[in-house]
Every structure is written in structure tokens, then in C-alpha cells.
């Protein structure tokens, strides 16, 4: 099972995560990342991974069945 976490302290609102996984990530009115779902279906794995890689501030991490991938 996927579990996604975001760090709004380090987020600078590039929205690259929205580009990579629009069903999982969005920006709020302050242009900071918010999760549309924090446990997305497994089909989203490659998109979530891509969002993690594409974040210039390394503000996204996720676990896949407990296996971590933080930033890059």
C-alpha cells in the first residue's frame, strides 16, 4: 500500500508534483502542496515516484508497503 507525505515547510510551490500526479497532488490558495489523497491506489506508484523525483525542494516522500523512498 502506498502512503504519501509532503513537507509544506520546504515546499516552494513549483507544482511539478501536480504535473506528475494530478490525481494525488494539488496546490492550495497559498500555492503550497496539498494531498488529494494520502493513500493513493497502487496504480499511482510510478506517478508518485515521478513527483518525488521532480520536486526541486525534495518535499515529497512515500512508502510502498513500508519501503521508503525519500526525496532523491
Amino acid at each position, binding site marked *: 500500500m502506498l502512503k504519501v507525505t509532503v513537507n509544506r515547510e520546504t515546499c516552494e*510551490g*513549483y507544482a511539478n508534483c*501536480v504535473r506528475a500526479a*494530478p490525481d494525488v497532488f*494539488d*496546490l492550495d490558495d497559498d*500555492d503550497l502542496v496539498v494531498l488529494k489523497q494520502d493513500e493513493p491506489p497502487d496504480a499511482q506508484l510510478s506517478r508518485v515516484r515521478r513527483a518525488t*523525483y*521532480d520536486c*526541486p525542494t525534495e518535499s515529497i516522500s512515500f512508502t510502498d508497503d513500508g519501503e521508503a523512498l525519500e526525496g532523491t
Partner: protein
Amino acid sequence: MRRDVVIVGGGLAAVRTAQALRDLRFEGSILLVSDEDRLPYDRPPLSKDYLLGRAGDDDICLLGAERVGELDVELRLGRPAVRLDREARRVTLAGDGDVEYEQLVVATGARANRLPALDGLAGIVYLRTAGDARALRDALAERPRVGIVGGGFIGLEVASVARQLGCEVTVIEMAPAPLAVVLGTELGSFVQEWHEGQGVVFRCGSVVTGARGDGRLEELVLACGTTVPADVAIVGVGVTPNVDWLDGSGLDVHRGVLCDAHGRTSDPAVFGVGDATCRHIDGQCRVSGHWTAATDHADMVASLIVGEAVDDSFAQEGYFWSDQFGSRLQFAGTVGADPQLSVASGAIPDRAFVALLGEPDRATAVFAMNSPREFMRTSLALRR
């Protein structure tokens, strides 16, 4: 020892290829060969926070020693590739030593174009590596008069940093306005006025033909005969792919090593990623030297190597961003000369807007300033 995959290059495209292979559960041996003698790092900050001194070496690290171990990737640093023998499936490295591969990924990136007319004086800077950026950061600390040759994104980012550090800055651009080649003259003129408001001086429609000084740069000479006083000049006039080492290999090289949309070359054992490549898609030669494109390419090539279906949904999008004077600029798509401009949200004078660019009846690109959420929504809609 023959490695299963040899990646030649040490930048983002090279690192992402190794990561994508492991993400796809590739279990073979991976060797990454880089001409730089330091661990791979991220380049966008080199003309932004790293140059400004707000980010250090740790902040730009792409692949720390610990991650290298976790990825189980062998690194060979400070070793430029000089020749490719496809028949023997062997890459010759400078100094001594060859490496042999089952599959090869060309990820040697690009270098800044040089202006030979400026050679021979201290103070002429080409910004591509972390070492270049550190040297420029030290030079800017002396508050020199700065000349920027080329009003593209690199030039304007450096102009922004140099102004913030208190330098006098003059941008010399061949086109009628900065960024006009990418955004058209109308938006280019807006960008110019915005920068002028921050104290940047522009000499548009001008070409630098030489430089004068006594050992050190003192002034840049323009084609019209006038001069621009400068102690330091940053030259940002495009890049050349690092593919010289492929001479004689028989691989097709055009504006980079020639690949199909997914990164295959004419040799089934050789793939290409990132700035070293060009792609022939629908009869057009495309070069995409952008940050996310490197990862797009890496994902596709890793899928080819492990034999999985390729997801090319991002591949032709041409997305990039720029940070200047605390503002965020974002662009996606492609435009021809003098594109039609329409504002989709916000207002240009407010410096918070999303603009559509393209043909009169069809937008082909999106440009935004300080509107990341609307930018992504608009560009995702355009992609569909």
C-alpha cells in the same frame, strides 16, 4: 568485466536512468562514468540560489555516497569517455582503461557555446558546472560591472542574481527583446520592462563582436561600434551537445545523438538521454535541454532496457521553469515565431498571470508568472 549497463555521463539524465532502472527492479550491474570528478549534482540552482550563496554543495547534491550504495551503482568519476567501439561494445576512457557494456546509455549532456571573439581575457565566464558557478560567485562578491551576453533564461537568471548582489548589469541580446525567441516579442518586452524596473540595462538588437582589456576584461564591443563597460561577462548563447566522443562510432549525430521518441539510437544496444540527444518525432528534429525532460528520457530508456511498456505521456511537453527577482516563471509547449498571445487568467501588469501562446485558433504553449497552480491546470488541459 562487461557491465550490463554502462551510463556515460554524470548529470541528471545519467542519475535518473540509474534510479529508473532500479525502480523497475533491474538487477544487473550498472556503471556510471562521469568526466567530472565530483558526485553528481543538480544544475538549476547554479544560476539561482547556489550563485546567490543561499544554497551550498550539500543542497545541490543529486546522488550522495549513501544513495550510490543503496542503488548498487558503480561510479567512475573524473574520466571522460573519448571513443566508442560499437562492434566490441567498448567505451574508451581518457587516461587508460576501457569499459565494456551489454547496453550503453549516452548521457554526456551539453556544454556552453563559446564565443571565440572573447577568448584571451580574464573575466569571460561560461556557466555550466558547479566549479564555474563557484568562481562566478566569488567574482560577483567584488561587485564588478557585469555584462550578460545573451538574454535567454540563463542570462536573465544571472542578471537577477548579480543585481541582487548590487552589481551594475547590462544584458546584450541579438533579438528585439530578451526571451523573444522563446516567448515572442510581446512577452519578451514585458520581461525587459520588468527587469529594467529592477535596474537591469538592456542593449537589444545588438551583437557582441569582441572584448577589450589589459589581460582582464574592461569592455565589450558591439557590432554597432559602441561598447559596454564590464569587468565580468557571462556568455549564455546556447549549448552544444557533448557527442564528440561518438565520432567514428557510426552512430547518427545531428543536433545530438539521434534518437527516436523513446531514446533508441540506430544501434539496439545504445540509447540516448538528456541534453546529448536530439529526437526525430513526426519528421521534426527536437532538442529538449530541460530539467524534467532528462527524467522523461531516463524513464523511457529504463523501460526499454528492462522490456516494459514505455510511458511517453510527458515526452513532448517542453516544460521548464525559471526564478528571477523572486518571481516564478513557467513554460510548457512549443511556439513558432511571433506567437499569438492571450491571457487565460490574472493580468500581465500584476505580474501574476497565465498566458496562452500559439496559432490564432490553437494554443501550443503556456507561459505563467507567479501562478503555478493555474499554470499546471492550464498546461495539463492543453496536453489532453
